[in-house]
């Protein structure tokens, strides 16, 4: 008999967590800070959780906070389906179920040490990237130059505005932001996020590039990086798929032979050569 059966350990069994904090970020995004009721929660930047709202269901969401935050962790959820809609109705003190942390493909926390880093984020792609960004900033001496590119559809959909302001003012981060649509309230760049690539001050060829955004964005970012001859081994893409079990069984998140929940969600671009369905 295998160990899991001897202990009746159930990979589908969520543990309870309490909503420690919840607030509306913009029209579609909600911020949550969660604390596990049993206190235990260790994760790496890039890992995700399956969050359950009893009676509604379960959804995979990548952790947005850095492990350096402490005992609790943060999620940002867009209201878009049944489970995310129910998450938006939660209140402080409510209980949710959490499975995880899940995912073995995480940000290259160790490999990136001493290297220059470029984060390219499209829309809520900032949410998972923020976990590694804050990890790097909390261990600033371990990493080289840091450039953060954020492209957002419109002014009202901007996220983490005060955090982005703080990063802009640090002096050791090159923060570049753009909006797809211009707005009278916005004095910065207008256009898609790939337009910002040319403005990056660090040497792109030797940098590690971390990318997360909507499915359509990857192709264009990769084209922009190809113009700068960035080696594929230096590019990391955070991929999203439909996912149910999160533990390599249900088959929904499969990209050719790879399960996003097992091999991802963060993939090295050079490893995607055998996965034509990836991009």
């Amino acid at each position: 008999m295998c160990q899991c059966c001897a202990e009746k350990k159930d990979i589908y069994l969520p543990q309870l967590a309490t909503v420690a904090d919840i607030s509306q970020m913009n029209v579609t995004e909600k911020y949550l800070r969660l604390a596990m009721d049993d206190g235990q929660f260790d994760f790496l930047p890039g890992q995700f959780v399956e969050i359950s709202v009893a009676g509604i269901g379960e959804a995979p969401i990548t952790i947005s906070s850095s492990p350096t935050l402490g005992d609790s962790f943060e999620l940002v959820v867009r209201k878009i389906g049944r489970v995310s809609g129910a998450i938006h109705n939660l209140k402080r003190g409510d209980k949710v179920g959490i499975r995880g942390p899940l995912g073995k493909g995480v940000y290259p926390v160790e490999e990136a040490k001493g290297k220059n880093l470029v984060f390219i984020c499209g829309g809520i792609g900032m949410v998972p990237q923020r976990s590694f960004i804050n990890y790097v900033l909390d261990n600033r001496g371990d990493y080289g130059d840091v450039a953060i590119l954020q492209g957002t559809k419109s002014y009202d959909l901007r996220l983490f505005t005060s955090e982005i302001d703080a990063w802009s003012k640090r002096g050791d981060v090159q923060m570049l932001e753009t909006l797809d649509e211009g707005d009278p309230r916005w004095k910065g760049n207008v256009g898609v996020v790939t337009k910002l690539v040319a403005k990056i001050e660090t040497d792109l060829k030797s940098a590690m590039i971390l990318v997360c955004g909507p499915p359509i964005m990857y192709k264009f970012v990769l084209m922009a990086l190809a113009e700068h001859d960035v080696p594929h081994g230096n590019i990391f893409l955070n991929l999203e798929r439909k996912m149910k079990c999160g533990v390599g069984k249900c088959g929904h998140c499969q990209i050719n032979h790879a399960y996003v929940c097992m091999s991802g969600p963060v993939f090295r671009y050079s490893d995607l050569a055998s996965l034509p369905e990836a991009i």
Partner: protein
Amino acid sequence: MTVKKIAKSDFTSFVDALIRTEKTIGVQAKGDRFDFAPLESAKDLRLDYDVTLQPPKKYFLPPSEVLLTFEVGGPYQSQLDGQKFILLGVHPYDMVAINQMDELFQQDNCDVHYVTRRQNATIIACDVAKPSDHVFASSMGTAVVKKGYDILLTDIGDSFVAEAATPKGEQLLAKAKGVKADAQALKKREDVWARNKKSLNKHELKCDPAYLPKLLAKAYKHPVWEEKAKTCFSCGSCNQVCPTCYCFNVQDDVNWDLKTGQRVREWDGCLLDGFTKVAPAHEFRKARADRFRHRLYRKGAYVPQKIGGQIACVGCGRCVGACLPDIANPVSIYNRLIDDLGIG
């Protein structure tokens, strides 16, 4: 381990004794076809069947099962099915499929729901007595099986040869009236195996199944996927009858009190439109041809990577019979690729 020769009349008494002591599921007639169902009497058992409508997978991974129960705001509780049962009449190709499922559900993250049911089961396999219309187990190397069962039965005419393969099987077989199988009986069993290795082959694969991953490695952009998928209804029948399909969906059901409920796992199928759809509208494998290709690649390339190269098509032929537009036959697809792309 014990190998017995059991006269057919004694075997009937043995099965009736099994039914009295434990839940026993066996192959029975269903109209002019066959299916696994709980047995009430040994006379309903049909070990002369060709193929069952559904594979026995449903007893380990039911079409719908409760994984957890919950009360809003309270802890989730695992629900494990504790009922022991005997599964009687599993053909070798289906046994191979169960062996593959065993590996897949235990590897990486062990699925305690599947494994608990599997451990509760005593499997009495039986060699094929009559080939079905579409079987190609001989081509897939699954016409005979050597592991996974507790007892293996072989019909040698007036009696069965029954071989115990586990302590559980040994214990059960001790209850059957019979004699130690003699050389003549064993020879007859060898003859059945030799016959089945050749005759369960209504569709003949033109290569060793071990070559399929290499064949598929160069077939990703072949026109066959588009051609076949043109008439595909995306109905998922091929998924539904497949003994090695195990994709599933999970959803919550709430009870009338609106406080308690259960998390339910249900079969899903990669051919169904929406299998890869995320809210609000993006679908990663939207084209029918891409979904059609994915199923064949799972059987011949992707799943084999997870189970040491074993091909995840066992040649039962159920998909061939279930597919209305008649495009699902894996052999005709693989052979077409061999014709066009060659071997080697």
